[in-house]
C-alpha cells in the first residue's frame, strides 16, 4: 500500500521535508511534519503563504469564516522554528534518492528585507506605481511595493520588479526614503538554494480556467459577468468593496443574480472533461451569503447535476435552498448576452425540451479547478508523471504517492477537491514522510523556546481587551468599536482596542507589542470561541512572557453575532455583557504551573478493514506499536466485497497483500474475533480491555483510532429479495467476478440510484454509488456491448475524474435518465418471473416501461453502530450515526476527545482511495502525541486548601478519575490532588463541604465575579 520503505540506512536519512506550495494543504502538511519531528522547508511561489483559502470569504458547508480558521495555522507556521518559509520561490530540480534528495530552489528577490521589515506599510503609501491587486482579483489597485494581503505570513512587504520605477527606470526610490526601518534592498538578487531533504510533498494547488474559456460566457466583455473568485472578494469584509456585493458597472446592489455551474469543467470543448468537485457546493455557499447580504434579491442557480456529495453537504444544501428561497434549474445556459436596456440575457433549455430566456443583473461564473499553471514544469523539476489533465498521476491504492518514490502529492494537484479533503491528505502525506524518514526523526529540529515568564503575582490586574470584527462576521452585526470603547471603562482594563482579524499574524505581533508597552498582565480577546482559538492566543501570551492561563475569551461571534444576525442592538448589548463578564473573571486569573505527562508510545486501532489496516501500518511504519482489533475472524472488511476498481484491478489482491504485511509486521499485534469491552484513561495513557473469543486482554496505549467501518444498506424497497433478477450493486460485483457473470439471454439491465440514500432511510448521499454504477455499467458493456443499460438517477455524482467513466458509459450507449424524488421508478415483478420497471422519462415527457433482465439497486452505506464506543470514549456522533470530527475543516480526522481519531466509513461514506488517504491522515495525527513523547494538559486541575479541608473524603469518593486522595498529616486527614490524573471537571469543588477545593482558571472567585458582572448589566 505504501511506497516501499527502504531499510532505514540510518546515516543518510535526512530528517527534513520540502513542501512545495503554501496553501492550506501545504501549510497543514508542514505543521503536521514538525509535530512528527521533521524540519520543513515550505516553498511558496507567491509573496505569502495562505493560498486560495486566504482569499475565500467563507467556506462550505458550515459557512465558517475562511480566514479565521486559516489564520491560526498561518501564524503557527510563521512562528514554528522548524518551518522555514521560502516565498517567491520555486522548485527547479530534484536529484538523489528517497531519504536523501537534493532540491534546487530558485528564490526571487523581495527587494525588501524580510528580517528588517516591520510591516508598517509606509513603502506602499509612498509608492508611485500602481498595479492590480491580485489578492482582490484586480478589482482594486495596489502598489509595486506591497503586501499580498494584510494578514499575510510572512507579514513583510515586497516589491514587484515588473512594475517598480526604480528597478526598471532608475527613478523614484521613494520607498527607500520612506522606510524608517531601512529594509528596502534594490540590489537584492535572485538566489539559487540547494537543500538536502528526505522527502518532498507537492501541494501547488490548482490553476485558473483560461480567459478564453471564460470569455465564452461574456467575462471581460460584460462588466456584470464575474467569476466566483471575484464574487468571493466582493462578499468579503477585507475585499475591494468592504464586503458589499456591488455590480461593477453601476456600483448598485444586484437584485437578480444567476450562478452558472461547470464553467471550464465537464466541458470537452476546453479539454477539461473532469468534474471540479467543489463548485456546486461553493455556489450554494455564495448564494447563501448573497442572501445574507440582501434578503430581497432573486437568486437562481443553474446546475447540470447537483454534486454535493461530502459529509453533511446535502443537508447544508437543502437547508440553504429552502431558507434562501433559491430557484434551482437543471440546465446549462450556453452563453451570456447583453441586451440594450441593461441586464444580462440567459437562454436555456430544460430537460423537457422547453426553451427559456430571462434577464439577470449579475451573472456569477462558477469556474472549475484546473491543473496548476506550471504543472508540466513542476512535474519535470520533481521528476513525476502527470495524468492527461496535467494533474499529478497517482494510483487508487497509493493515492498520495507520486510516480517517483519519496515524492508525495496532496490537495487539488492530486485531483480537484475541497478543503477538508486537502487537509486530510496533508495529514496523510505527513504520516507517509514520517514513516519513510523514521531514522531521521528529530535530527534536524529544534525545540521552540519562549521567553521566561514574568512573575505577575504582586501586580495589580492590568487587563488588555481586544475586540475582533472577524471581517464582517462580528463587525457586520455587533458595533465592535462601541464594545471596545465600553471595555475601556471597565475596572482593571488599561487598554482596549478593536481589530479586523484578531487571529492574524500582524495582530499577534501587535498583541505582543501592546502587552509590553502597557505592561499588561492579563488578556481578554472578544472574538469567536475559545474552543478553536484559545491555543493561538495563549501561544502569543507565552511569546510576550506571560503564563498562558492569564487569558480569557469572550465569545461574541459563535454565540452572539452569528445567532442574533437581525438584532444588532441586542447583539451589541450581549457582546458588552460578555466582555464585562470576561474582564471580571480575568481580574482573578493567576499564573498556573504546567505539568508534563509521559505518553505510552503505542496505538490501538479498532476495525481491521481497509481504513484500520492502512492506519495501523502507517503508524507502525513510524516506529510505534499498534494493536489492531477486528470483530470478524478475518481482516479485510467490506473492501473484500469489491471485485474490480474502476481501472480494472482487483482490490482483493491489494487487500490480501496488506493483510499479509500487517500479519507479519513486527510492530503490529492483531486480535481478531475481538471487541472493545472497556476503555479508560486519556490521551497518552489509555487502558483498553479487548475481549477476544479466547481471552480478555488489557492493552495500554497512547492513542486510539476508530475505523469501525460501515455496511451496505439493506433495501426493502423496489421488491428487493422477491426475484433473483433484483440485485444490489455489490451482488452484481460478485456475479461479475463469477463463472457466469450474465445470463445468456439477458438483454436489458436497469440500475436505480440512491436506494436508501438521500432522504429515503438514510438522510445523506452515500457518495460512492454513482461511481459504482458507472464502473459496473462499463464492465457489463465490456462483456456484452449490445446489452441495453438504463441508469435511473437523481444526480449523477461522478465527481473529479469519475466524470471520465460517466462519459465513457454514455459513449458506450448506457442510457441515463433522471428521476424526481417525488416520482420514483416503479418496479413490478411479474408472476412469470419478469421484472418490469416503470419510470417517467423527462425527455419524452411520458412514462416508459422496461423489462429488466437484471435490476441493480445502488444501495447506500450505513455506518456500523457507533453508540457503545462513543459512550465509552465520550465522543459525539452525528444524527446519522457517523462519528463527529472535532472540526470539519481544521481537524477532519480528529475526534473532540484528545488522542482519539476516526477514519473510513465510520467518518462518512467514501471511496477506496479516499479511505486510504484519510486512514493515513488519522495515522499521522495519532502519531503527534506519540512522537512528542509527552503531553502538557491544560493546567485546570483542582487544588485543596489544607487550612479549610476537614478530610471528610467526599472528594475522593466522587472523583471520577481517582485524582484526589486523603492522606494523614499530624493525625489529621487532608485531601490532596494528584495533578497528573486530574482532568479538571470540578465535581470535588462543587461537593466540598467547606469550599476547600478550587479549580484552576475556573475558580470560585472568578465565577462569582462573572455572576456579579452579569448582575451589573441585568439590573440596569
Amino acid at each position: 500500500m505504501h511506497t516501499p520503505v527502504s531499510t532505514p540506512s540510518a546515516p543518510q536519512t535526512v530528517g527534513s521535508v520540502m513542501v512545495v506550495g503554501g496553501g492550506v494543504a501545504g501549510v497543514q502538511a508542514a505543521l503536521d511534519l514538525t509535530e512528527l519531528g521533521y524540519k520543513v522547508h515550505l516553498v511558496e511561489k507567491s509573496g505569502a503563504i495562505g493560498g486560495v483559502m486566504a482569499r475565500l470569504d467563507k467556506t462550505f458547508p458550515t459557512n465558517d469564516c475562511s480566514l479565521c480558521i486559516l489564520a491560526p495555522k498561518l501564524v503557527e507556521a510563521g512562528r514554528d522554528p522548524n518551518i522555514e518559509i521560502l516565498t517567491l520561490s520555486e522548485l527547479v530540480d530534484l536529484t538523489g534518492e528517497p531519504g536523501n534528495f537534493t532540491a534546487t530552489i530558485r528564490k526571487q528577490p523581495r527587494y525588501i528585507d524580510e528580517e528588517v521589515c516591520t510591516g508598517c506599510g509606509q513603502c506602499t503609501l509612498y509608492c508611485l506605481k500602481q498595479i492590480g491587486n491580485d489578492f482582490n482579483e484586480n478589482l482594486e489597485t495596489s502598489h509595486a511595493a506591497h503586501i499580498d494581503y494584510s494578514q499575510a505570513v510572512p507579514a513583510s512587504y515586497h516589491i514587484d520588479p515588473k512594475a517598480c520605477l526604480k528597478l526598471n527606470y532608475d527613478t523614484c526610490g521613494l520607498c527607500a526614503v520612506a522606510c524608517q526601518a531601512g529594509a528596502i534592498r534594490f540590489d537584492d538578487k535572485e538566489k539559487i538554494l540547494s537543500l538536502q531533504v528526505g522527502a518532498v510533498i507537492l501541494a501547488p494547488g490548482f490553476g485558473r480556467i483560461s480567459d478564453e474559456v471564460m470569455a465564452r460566457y461574456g467575462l471581460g466583455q460584460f462588466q456584470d459577468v464575474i467569476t466566483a473568485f471575484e464574487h468571493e472578494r466582493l462578499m468579503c469584509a477585507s475585499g475591494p468593496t468592504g464586503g458589499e456585493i456591488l455590480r461593477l458597472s453601476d456600483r448598485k446592489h444586484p437584485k437578480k443574480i444567476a450562478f452558472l455551474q461547470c464553467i471550464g469543467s465537464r466541458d470537452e470543448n476546453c479539454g477539461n472533461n473532469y468534474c471540479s468537485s467543489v463548485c456546486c457546493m461553493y455556489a450554494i455557499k455564495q448564494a447563501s451569503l448573497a442572501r445574507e447580504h440582501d434578503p430581497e434579491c432573486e437568486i437562481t442557480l443553474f446546475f447540470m447535476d447537483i454534486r454535493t456529495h461530502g459529509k453533511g453537504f446535502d443537508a447544508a444544501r437543502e437547508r440553504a435552498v429552502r431558507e434562501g428561497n433559491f430557484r434551482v434549474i437543471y440546465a446549462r445556459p450556453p452563453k451570456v448576452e447583453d441586451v440594450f436596456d441593461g441586464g444580462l440575457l440567459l437562454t436555456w433549455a430544460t430537460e423537457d425540451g422547453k426553451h427559456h430566456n430571462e434577464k439577470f443583473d449579475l451573472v456569477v461564473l462558477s469556474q472549475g479547478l484546473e491543473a496548476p499553471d506550471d504543472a508540466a514544469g513542476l512535474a519535470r523539476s520533481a521528476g513525476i508523471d502527470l495524468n492527461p489533465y496535467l494533474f499529478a498521476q497517482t494510483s487508487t491504492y497509493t493515492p498520495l504517492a507520486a510516480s517517483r518514490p519519496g515524492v508525495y502529492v496532496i490537495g487539488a494537484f492530486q485531483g480537484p477537491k475541497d478543503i477538508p479533503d486537502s487537509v486530510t491528505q496533508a495529514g496523510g502525506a505527513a504520516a507517509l514522510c514520517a514513516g519513510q524518514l523514521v531514522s531521521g526523526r528529530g535530527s534536524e529540529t529544534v525545540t521552540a523556546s519562549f521567553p521566561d515568564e514574568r512573575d505577575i503575582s504582586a501586580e495589580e490586574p492590568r487587563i488588555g481587551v481586544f475586540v475582533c470584527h472577524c471581517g464582517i462576521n462580528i463587525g457586520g452585526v455587533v458595533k465592535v468599536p462601541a464594545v471596545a470603547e465600553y471595555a475601556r471603562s471597565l475596572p482593571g482594563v488599561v487598554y482596549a482596542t478593536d481589530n479586523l482579524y484578531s487571529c492574524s499574524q500582524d495582530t499577534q505581533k501587535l498583541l505582543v507589542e501592546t502587552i509590553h508597552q502597557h505592561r499588561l498582565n492579563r488578556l481578554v480577546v472578544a472574538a469567536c470561541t475559545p474552543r478553536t482559538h484559545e491555543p493561538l492566543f495563549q501561544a502569543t501570551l507565552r511569546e510576550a512572557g506571560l503564563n498562558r492561563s492569564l487569558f480569557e475569551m469572550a465569545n461574541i461571534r459563535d454565540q452572539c453575532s452569528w445567532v442574533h444576525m437581525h438584532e444588532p442592538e441586542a447583539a451589541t448589548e450581549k457582546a458588552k455583557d460578555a466582555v464585562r463578564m470576561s474582564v471580571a473573571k480575568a481580574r482573578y486569573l493567576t499564573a498556573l504551573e504546567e505539568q508534563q505527562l509521559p505518553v505510552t508510545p503505542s496505538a490501538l486501532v479498532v476495525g481491521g478493514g481497509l481504513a484500520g489496516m492502512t492506519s495501523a501500518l502507517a503508524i507502525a511504519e513510524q516506529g510505534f506499536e499498534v494493536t489492531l482489533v477486528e470483530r470478524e475472524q478475518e481482516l479485510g472488511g467490506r473492501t473484500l466485497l469489491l471485485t474490480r476498481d474502476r481501472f480494472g484491478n482487483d482490490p482483493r489482491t491489494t487487500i490480501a497483500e496488506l493483510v499479509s504485511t500487517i500479519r507479519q509486521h513486527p510492530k503490529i499485534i492483531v486480535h481478531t474475533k475481538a471487541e472493545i469491552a472497556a476503555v479508560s484513561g486519556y490521551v497518552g495513557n489509555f487502558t483498553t480491555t479487548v475481549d477476544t473469543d479466547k481471552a480478555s486482554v488489557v492493552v495500554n496505549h497512547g492513542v486510539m483510532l476508530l475505523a469501525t467501518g460501515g455496511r451496505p444498506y439493506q433495501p426493502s424497497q423496489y421488491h428487493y429479495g422477491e426475484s433473483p433478477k433484483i440485485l444490489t450493486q455489490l451482488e452484481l460485483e460478485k456475479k461479475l467476478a463469477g463463472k457466469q457473470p450474465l445470463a445468456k439471454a439477458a438483454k436489458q439491465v436497469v440500475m436505480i440510484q440512491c436506494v436508501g440514500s438521500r432522504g429515503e432511510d438514510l438522510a445523506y448521499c452515500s457518495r460512492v454509488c454513482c461511481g459504482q454504477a458507472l464502473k459496473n455499467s462499463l464492465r457489463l458493456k465490456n462483456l456484452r456491448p449490445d446489452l441495453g443499460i438504463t441508469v435511473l438517477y437523481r444526480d449523477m455524482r461522478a465527481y473529479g475524474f469519475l466524470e471520465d467513466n460517466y462519459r465513457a458509459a454514455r459513449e458506450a450507449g448506457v442510457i441515463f435518465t433522471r428521476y424526481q424524488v417525488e416520482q420514483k421508478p416503479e418496479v413490478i415483478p411479474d408472476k412469470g418471473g419478469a421484472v418490469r420497471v416503470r419510470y417517467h422519462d423527462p425527455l419524452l415527457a411520458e412514462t416508459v416501461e422496461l423489462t429488466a433482465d437484471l435490476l441493480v439497486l445502488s444501495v447506500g452505506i450505513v455506518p456500523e453502530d457507533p453508540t457503545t464506543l462513543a459512550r465509552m470514549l465520550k465522543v459525539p456522533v452525528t444524527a446519522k450515526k457517523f462519528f463527529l470530527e472535532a472540526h470539519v475543516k481544521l481537524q477532519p480526522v480528529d475526534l473532540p476527545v484528545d488522542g482519539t481519531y476516526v477514519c473510513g466509513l465510520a467518518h462518512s461514506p467514501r471511496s477506496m482511495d479516499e479511505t486510504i488517504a484519510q486512514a493515513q491522515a488519522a495515522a499521522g495525527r495519532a502519531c503527534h502525541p506519540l512522537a512528542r513523547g509527552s503531553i502538557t494538559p491544560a493546567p485546570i486541575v483542582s487544588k485543596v486548601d489544607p487550612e479549610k479541608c476537614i478530610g471528610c473524603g467526599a472528594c475522593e469518593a466522587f472523583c471520577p478519575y481517582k485524582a484526589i486522595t486523603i492522606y494523614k498529616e499530624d493525625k489529621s486527614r487532608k485531601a490532596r490532588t494528584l495533578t497528573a490524573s486530574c482532568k479538571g471537571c470540578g465535581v470535588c469543588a462543587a461537593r466540598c463541604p467547606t469550599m476547600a477545593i478550587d479549580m484552576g482558571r475556573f475558580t470560585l472567585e472568578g465565577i462569582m465575579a462573572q455572576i456579579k458582572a452579569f448582575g451589573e448589566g441585568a439590573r440596569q
Partner: protein
Amino acid sequence: MSDSYQPKILGFLCNWCCYTAADSAGVGRYQYPPNLRVIRMMCTGRLDPSFPLEGLATGADAIFVGGCHPGECHYIDGNYHALVSASLVHEALDRLGVNRERFLIDWASAAEGPNFVKIITAFTKRVAALGPLGSSEGLDQAALRTRLAEAAEAVRGRKIRTGLINASREMMKGGDFSRKTVAGLVAEKCEKALNELFV
C-alpha cells in the same frame, strides 16, 4: 418577542456538550433570542449549588444549566452531580416561593446545535411569560433578591453541603439518576438543614 418582557437569563454551559452545541448553532446560523449570557465551565459537575441562586440574587430572571446528555458526560458522571446541585436549587426556590420554572437544567450534545436553540428559545419564551423575578410570584423583587443572596450564602455552608454529599453518595450507590429520584434524595438528605434555613 419584542413586545413581551425581555428576561435576563444566565447560563452555565459545559465546555464539551452544551457550549459546543451553542457554538455549532452559531456556525449553522440558527437564530435564537438574545437573552442568554453564558458562563463556560469545563463540566456541569463544577456547578456549585450557590451559583444559580447567586445569579438570581444578582439580577437574573432565570438560570439555565446545560450539560451533556445523561450517560454521556465527558467526565463520566459530572452531570449527575449537577442534577444533585440542581435539585437543591429547585428545593430552595420552592421554599422561597420562586417559580421553579425559572431554573432549568437540560442537555444538548456537541452535535445538537439545533436542539440547543430549541431549548433556549422555548425557555426564553416561558420566562418572558413569567415576567421579571417576583412578578409571577407576587413577591417584592428587592426583598426576594436579598433572600436569594442569603440562600446562596447558606448553600455554601457546611450543613447543607453535607446533606448534598449524602444525597450524592446514595445516588451513586443506587445507580438511579432519574430527576425524580435525585430530587427525592436531595429533599430527604437536606431537609433538616433546609428547615433550619427557611423557617
